[in-house]
């Protein structure tokens, strides 16, 4: 079935690839917004009305005034009011992507549009990972491994892998989660508890910290470097390694899906879809499957 699916993707007359890469790119961004731009009641009600038409009508999809209005809406909610309500970093990336499209549609010639959008997608990914890497050097608890020791033993998304690799039972990890929940809901600020952990978790957390710095740092370097540098040619491989090593364990779906969309856009070369573009597209489509608790299922069988 998978083979048939991939063969269908490769056929020149496949419906999707009759579309220009620019059209597919814009549609991917619209789909992301349709799925995730629903932070409050106003957006949840009005955005689908605003976002479905460009998926149906090409004139709207490539209308620069439409994207300018979308840029304004996203800037208000995600860039201006971002310290008032809960606006995670990937919502900022949504706004940057929309603004990038608006700039391209307003200021680029028709033949340069996809090239310019691809360039902007590359820079957005590069800067995002550059700041993430610098941020890790600004956090002492990340550098000494205690961030991952804390996160791996209190955040349920990591419990499966943590228990398999470090010989600790899920019940201990669930106790940590429950104690942390009690602490943040406390009526006594003097409350405290002891984390259930072990030496193996401390060691693996230290390794994980520097692996993360390495892979995020390499993505930052290769995406920010101009194409003329040889290292820059490996940028997609580093991003793919990051996707494979991160998403099955700790997917922040909003971040993952915009990263896949931007990955698709930046991997377009000479107005053509590359094998990397197809990979990002498959990731984009399969992302909902990350809700399956793979590591916990695996735990049931060992």
């Amino acid at each position, binding site marked *: 079935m998978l083979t048939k699916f991939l063969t269908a993707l490769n056929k020149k007359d496949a419906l999707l690839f009759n579309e220009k890469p620019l059209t597919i790119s814009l549609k991917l961004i619209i789909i992301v917004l349709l799925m995730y731009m629903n932070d409050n009641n106003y957006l949840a009600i009005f955005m689908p009305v605003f976002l479905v038409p460009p998926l149906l009508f090409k004139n709207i999809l490539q209308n620069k005034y439409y994207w300018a209005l979308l840029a304004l809406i996203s800037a208000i909610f995600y860039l201006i009011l971002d310290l*008032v309500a809960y606006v995670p970093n990937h919502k900022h990336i949504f706004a*940057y992507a929309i603004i990038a499209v608006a700039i391209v549609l307003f200021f680029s010639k028709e033949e340069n549009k996809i090239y310019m959008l691809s360039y902007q997608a590359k820079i957005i990914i590069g*800067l995002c990972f550059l700041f993430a890497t610098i*941020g890790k050097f600004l956090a002492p608890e990340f550098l000494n491994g205690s961030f991952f020791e804390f996160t791996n033993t209190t955040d349920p998304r990591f419990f499966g892998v943590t228990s398999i690799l470090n010989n600790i039972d899920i019940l201990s990890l669930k106790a940590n989660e429950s104690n942390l929940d009690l602490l943040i809901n406390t009526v006594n600020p*003097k409350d405290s508890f002891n984390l259930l952990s072990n030496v193996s978790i401390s060691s693996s957390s230290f390794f994980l910290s520097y692996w993360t710095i390495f892979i995020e740092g390499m993505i930052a370097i290769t995406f920010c470097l101009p194409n003329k540098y040889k290292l820059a040619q490996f940028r997609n491989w580093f991003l793919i390694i990051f996707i494979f090593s991160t998403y099955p364990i700790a997917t922040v779906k909003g971040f993952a899906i915009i990263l896949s969309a931007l990955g698709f856009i930046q991997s377009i070369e000479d107005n053509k879809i590359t094998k990397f573009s197809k990979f990002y597209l498959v990731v984009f489509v399969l992302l909902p499957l990350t809700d399956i608790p793979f590591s916990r299922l695996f735990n049931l069988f060992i």
Partner: protein
Amino acid sequence: MLFFFARNIYLVQSKGLDSWMGGGMRMFGKIDKMLYRVAGFEVTYNSKKYFINLRSVPEFEDEDVALRILPSDDRLKEISKKIKSKKWFFNPEKENITLKPTSVNSLLIDNALITKIEVLTVDFDAKTKEIKLKDINYAN
């Protein structure tokens, strides 16, 4: 993007901004984040101190989130005023303070008894493995 990164670093250092927020892209770095922060206020009643965690007051959900994201002096004072403008009740059976009377014996408290509004965050000591709360900022 550079502006939001620079602003993030400045606000984290000077105003206690959650480093994961504000478009700084510094997620998965520090343990301290708004999800693990606690915002609340202290009431001294009958010589005893009571802490009211804003997570338990649905009417103050927006203020709770705003405080946990950016517990600046200005924001603390503004929300402190709002808290003090409401009527709070002490339930002697449950020994808690709520926004609405929860029993016939609930007593209206004098808002002058609200002594402090504060934001705390979890603190993990990697050596002892102890997790406790520590102050980020407060206002009287």
